[in-house]
């Protein structure tokens, strides 16, 4: 994306600030709500779901920081390297959050009785996958100046597989896991949308508005859904 100074385009600054703020607040909201629910239910799926959105909060905060620095500093080479590092830490967190979200759908299939979920080898492997993806992408970016978008492929395959697995399981069991599935599908859409943007943007910059304009709605929809699930009055439904 070509950044311009604030004086040249205050609209872009307003748009990006609005988008990032809504996303960050929504993620924080989901994290707080689901964390409270986890304390009540001790359901591990909710634990991973909650952790995913905590990670997304940090990820999007870093991305906003990246935008702010780049927006106000222009093309200053002095801060170029630190910006690359910040963007790849954000990428690492983006992948990790997606993996947590996918794992929240399929944890029953993999996990044993271990109570220390953060020490689980599966979670260590998730962190490793994220780190490898971020480092490989960073290597290509430093060497060839082009991002290979490896994380999109990885995330789309893993999240898609998790959704498919859960969908089948959900159909068989007849349980209602709508918030999990819809959040994962919407997150998949986010990865897909940004993936499309990365290829189309060079010759069609307006695509940035189409993709990022819908993101706050997606996150807010998930937050809204989660709030309704947690704050809803079960007696009203019975």
């Amino acid at each position: 994306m070509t950044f311009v100074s604030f004086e040249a385009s205050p609209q872009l600054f307003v748009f990006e600030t609005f988008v990032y703020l809504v996303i960050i607040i929504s993620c924080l909201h989901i994290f707080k709500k689901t964390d409270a629910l986890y304390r009540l239910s001790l359901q591990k799926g909710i634990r991973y779901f909650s952790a995913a959105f905590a990670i997304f909060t940090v990820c999007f905060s870093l991305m906003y920081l990246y935008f702010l620095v780049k927006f106000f500093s222009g093309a200053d080479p002095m801060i170029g390297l630190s910006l690359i590092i910040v963007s790849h830490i954000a990428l690492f967190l983006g992948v990790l959050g997606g993996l947590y979200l996918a794992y929240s759908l399929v944890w029953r299939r993999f996990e044993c009785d271990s109570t220390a979920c953060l020490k689980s080898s599966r979670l260590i492997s998730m962190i490793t996958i994220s780190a490898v993806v971020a480092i490989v992408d960073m290597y290509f970016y430093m060497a060839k100046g082009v991002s290979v978008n490896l994380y999109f492929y990885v995330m789309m395959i893993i999240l898609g597989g998790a959704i498919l697995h859960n969908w089948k399981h959900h159909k068989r069991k007849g349980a209602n896991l709508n918030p999990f599935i819809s959040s994962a599908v919407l997150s998949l859409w986010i990865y897909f949308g940004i993936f499309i943007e990365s290829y189309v943007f060079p010759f069609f910059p307006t695509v940035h508005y189409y993709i990022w304009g819908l993101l706050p709605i997606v996150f807010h929809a998930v937050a809204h859904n989660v709030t309704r699930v947690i704050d809803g009055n079960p007696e009203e439904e019975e």
Partner: protein
Amino acid sequence: MHYFTIIGHRMVKKAKKPKKVKPQLKSEMKETKMEPMKERNTADKTTRNSKTKKGRKKSPICFVVMALVVVVLNYVMAQAAQWLKIPFFLDTWGTMLGAMVAGLPVAMVGGFLYNLVMAFTSWGLDAWVWGFSSLWVAFITWYLWKKKWIDTGNPLKMVLVGVIIALTNAAITLAIKWVFFGGLPTYPGTADTYQLFYTISNGSAVVAAIGEHVLTELADKTMSVFVAAMMLDHLSAKLKKRGRC
């Protein structure tokens, strides 16, 4: 898992279960017999009916105020979108909200009025024809709302609703554009999209116009229907907390 069984819940009011009647003594039952019970039931029925009628009856002032609210909501968001130079119109979410809250007539009048206001203030007099698009949006939203398709508890269904509204409305706006404006883009925010499809199709104005309309409407209407439905949920929740709903 208990919490996840209630996701399908709607904000639409459901018929309440009949309250349990305390068992009466046999002597008391004899005293009351059937006739008084019958009377009590009819009275209860009439009160409920009259209450419903009273609730549904809208005064002309209420109608006008609601329609004006629709106009203002559409106007504010449209101006914001125009200032931000984003490729969305965002001028139908008020109409959608009006269709869900106040019914079809209010949404239709409000939507059409908004287009007249815009035609007289910033778009130019010819632009009043876009009002027909608002009429359709009001109708289709109201219809899908009545069919219970618009439900924030099911975001994927909401996306489908957005797609239905977008595609049907794209056909109408495309027809209006061809008949009244010669197929050229009339909104500066979507000019880039038109240009993209024009280049891809090797200079075909038809493909460019269709591509521009479909892409813009898909994003715009999906966004609008989500915003309207979530706003309605927030309003309902607040009113419920205050005990007015």
